[in-house]
């Protein structure tokens, strides 16, 4: 009996690898396992080689493994590019006829995947054959696979669903009848973590829950999944989703709608976010609440469009010309994505500042099962928004002890709503006066930052005082959690918010630590630099990965072992 197993289904784009993977996740989740699955795909719609790798276990899992115990490859190229990732003692199932492979290596097993698919209706059903085989080879009862198929394909009509179910059945029966000796027995334990969610979906649900009523973006991988999910629920929740002509339009639309009193959001990846920088600065100057999700991928320029990175930490901290206060959230899990979205909307409105949410392709598209966080957490707090007949205000940008002024809603408050991107006086009109400039800068920068700092999300600290302490932000939460549980005398600090930087909390968390290392998905150790700058504490080194792939548990644990 295995505690866990990693299953990789691989093939070219267009073969339904993602659908197969999502069905795998559902099947394991519904059969009493926890799952964590990554998507690895090329920037193309057909061809190439993609894979979906699900890790299923009797205990909660939060990170991918380096190797797959069971691999099902749907074409020749998939075999060639994935065989090195087969774990020792692992099984690779392939269709020798389809792949034109004559010699089977150790652990390889030939199965008539395509003949079975054709029997079910055609070669398109190979992915469901693979699912059925995976079920049989990991001793999951067929019903769970069948339910997963119905769930995945029911929207496409009864015939498609029925043919896929038949394909899964044929795959299951073939593997049960012919490959039983190669099967894995996987432990199970009933659990209540019944939601199956990726980071982008969780972030979108957070925005919906926060009352976002206007979502605008220009499509860009890997941020588009947020727009997809919001669009799926737009009609039900009274949300307008507007695809912008470019990211400059998107950010200016988000600011315009927010100025008019509506919770608004946009998202992009690095290149699109670069185009938004002036708009970010506009939000700060006009003190208009703005929420932007930056779902990172490797750059520079177009980079790796469908892969992952944490390269834009410093970019997010400094994006936009001029000096102004902002909040930067770096959630580490789908749960944290949900809460970060809700928090970001509140922060943006209460402080009238831009709030950024940093995610990355790995977090955005990795699927895991979880108990959904409390939806009533972080109820909408609109700060000093003026609605109704509150009487004329003292000016949109009137000075106040915390730097936040009353914000009239055009057409809804008695006071007129002003917004100006020029330097302006308390009434919002253009000024050239030095003393006004000084007061306004203090309001936008110092006073607001002080308020934001008081409410910064505290880092997650596990095993303080360990011989090695890993520090990370964003998507590294899960891999640090598991690696530190697997290695002796290791702990970690994870930042769900990196700006304002929680300096005092960092120093307290790392007090008595042996060696401090950062673990980051970039080439230069951006978090290490930030920590040094904000605390004076210099991490001893950084575990860096910048090949476009996520950290695996194996890599992180090995780095910790080296550190110890």
């Amino acid at each position, binding site marked *: 009996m295995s505690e866990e197993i990693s299953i990789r289904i691989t093939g070219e784009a267009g073969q339904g690898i993602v659908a197969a993977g999502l069905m795998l996740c559902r099947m394991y989740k519904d059969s009493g396992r926890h799952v964590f699955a990554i998507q690895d795909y090329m920037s193309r719609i057909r061809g190439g080689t993609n894979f979906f790798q699900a890790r299923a276990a009797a205990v909660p899992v939060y990170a991918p493994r380096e190797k797959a115990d069971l691999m099902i490859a749907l074409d020749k190229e998939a075999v060639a590019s994935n065989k090195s990732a087969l774990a020792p003692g692992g099984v690779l199932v392939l269709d020798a006829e389809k792949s034109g492979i004559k010699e089977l290596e150790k652990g390889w097993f030939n199965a008539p995947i395509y003949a079975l698919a054709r029997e079910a209706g055609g070669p398109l059903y190979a992915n469901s054959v693979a699912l059925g085989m995976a079920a049989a080879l990991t001793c999951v009862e067929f019903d769970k696979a069948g339910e997963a198929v119905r769930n995945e394909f029911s929207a496409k009509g009864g015939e498609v669903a029925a043919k896929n179910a038949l394909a899964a059945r044929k795959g299951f029966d073939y593997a049960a009848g012919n490959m039983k000796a190669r099967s894995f027995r996987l432990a199970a334990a009933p659990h209540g973590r019944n939601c199956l969610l990726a980071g982008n979906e969780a972030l979108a649900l957070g925005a919906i829950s926060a009352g976002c009523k206007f979502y605008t973006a220009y499509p860009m991988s890997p941020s588009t999944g947020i727009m997809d999910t919001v669009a799926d629920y737009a009609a039900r929740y009274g949300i307008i989703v507007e695809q912008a002509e470019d990211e400059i*339009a998107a950010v200016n639309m988000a600011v315009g709608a927010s100025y008019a009193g509506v919770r608004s959001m946009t998202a992009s990846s690095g290149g699109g976010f670069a185009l938004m920088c002036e708009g970010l600065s506009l939000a700060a100057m006009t003190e208009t609440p703005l929420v932007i999700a930056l779902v990172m991928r490797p750059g520079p320029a177009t980079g790796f469009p469908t892969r992952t990175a944490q390269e834009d930490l410093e970019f997010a901290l400094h994006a936009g010309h001029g000096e102004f206060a902002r909040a930067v959230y770096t959630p580490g899990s789908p749960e944290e994505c949900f809460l970060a979205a809700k928090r970001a909307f509140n922060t943006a409105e209460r402080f009238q500042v831009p709030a950024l949410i940093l995610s990355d392709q790995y977090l955005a598209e990795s699927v895991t099962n979880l108990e959904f966080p409390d939806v009533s957490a972080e109820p909408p707090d609109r700060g000093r928004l003026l609605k109704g007949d509150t009487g004329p205000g003292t000016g949109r940008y009137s000075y106040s002890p915390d730097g936040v002024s009353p914000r009239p809603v055009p057409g809804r408050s008695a006071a007129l709503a002003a917004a100006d991107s*020029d330097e302006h006086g308390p009434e919002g009109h253009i000024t050239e006066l030095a003393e006004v400039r000084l007061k306004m800068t203090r309001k936008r920068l110092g006073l607001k930052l002080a308020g934001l700092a008081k409410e910064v999300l505290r880092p997650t600290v596990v095993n303080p005082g360990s011989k090695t302490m890993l520090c990370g932000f964003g998507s590294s939460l899960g891999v640090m959690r598991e690696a530190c549980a697997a290695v002796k005398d290791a702990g970690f600090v994870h930042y769900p918010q990196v700006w304002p930087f929680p300096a005092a909390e960092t120093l307290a968390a790392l007090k008595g630590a042996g060696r401090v290392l950062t673990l980051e998905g970039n080439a230069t150790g951006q978090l290490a630099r930030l920590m040094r700058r904000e605390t004076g504490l210099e991490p001893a080194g950084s575990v860096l990965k910048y090949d476009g792939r996520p950290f695996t548990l194996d890599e992180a644990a090995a780095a910790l072992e080296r550190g110890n």
Partner: protein
Amino acid sequence: MEAADFNSADPVAWCPGCGNFGIQAALKTALAELGKKPRELLLVSGIGQAAKMPHYIKANFFNGLHGRALPAAAAAKIANRELTVIVTTGDGDCYGEGGNHFVHNIRRNVDMTVIVHDNRIYGLTKGQASPTSEPGLKTRIQPGGVILAPFPPLETALALGCGFVARGYAAEREHLAGLILAGIRHKGFSLIDVFQPCPSFNKLNTFDWYARRVYKVGPGHDVTDKAAALALAAERERLPLGVLYSRARPDYGELSGLDGMKPLVDAELDNIDLSPALADFR
């Protein structure tokens, strides 16, 4: 309402003799005739001399980034469809820096009125060529004269399917006020390109220059005839003023379903029930 009800306390920073004064007067006249209160109006602008207009009219205002007035204005209207949204922009702001937004917001067709103060020169940056500058116009940057072909705003708008296309002249205040009022009353994206002499920097397209060329489109012109509108817009020797094209077409509010919804700004944000969405992820 009277024109004086829209007076702003903010001191005006335009040059003496600027065509903007005529546009400002026409806008106030149109707003008085419209009868809406300042709190029901939203003036949106980018950056440039024209973009200062919202400071000089009493209303809600959003003075945003250079070239980006249209996306901000469109979204504000989407956020609260009860607002009357007017954009005051210039040829550099709207046709140059914001050209992409000009194209796509005509397609988007949100109900707003866009007044382009077209002085065919860059005023705020002191006299460089604009997208509508005459070829041959000499500037410090273009000492041999402008060589780029001028951007044709009216023909572009007509080609894109804009439902209201008009041209005014800053010196014809009453006529311009009528165009603005008609533009506001048209449901959808309304474009009013306004000839605006710039005495400081454009020594070519002066009041005298315009006086010799402009004429008002007569009652014989069928404003629903797009071919006729295109022919008028293409005239280069004599320059027609008036509504060239006006035809109802479904706007964003109608097509997006927004018109059937409570204004987004009035949505209740407390106690949003997420359970129907969450059920899909179980």
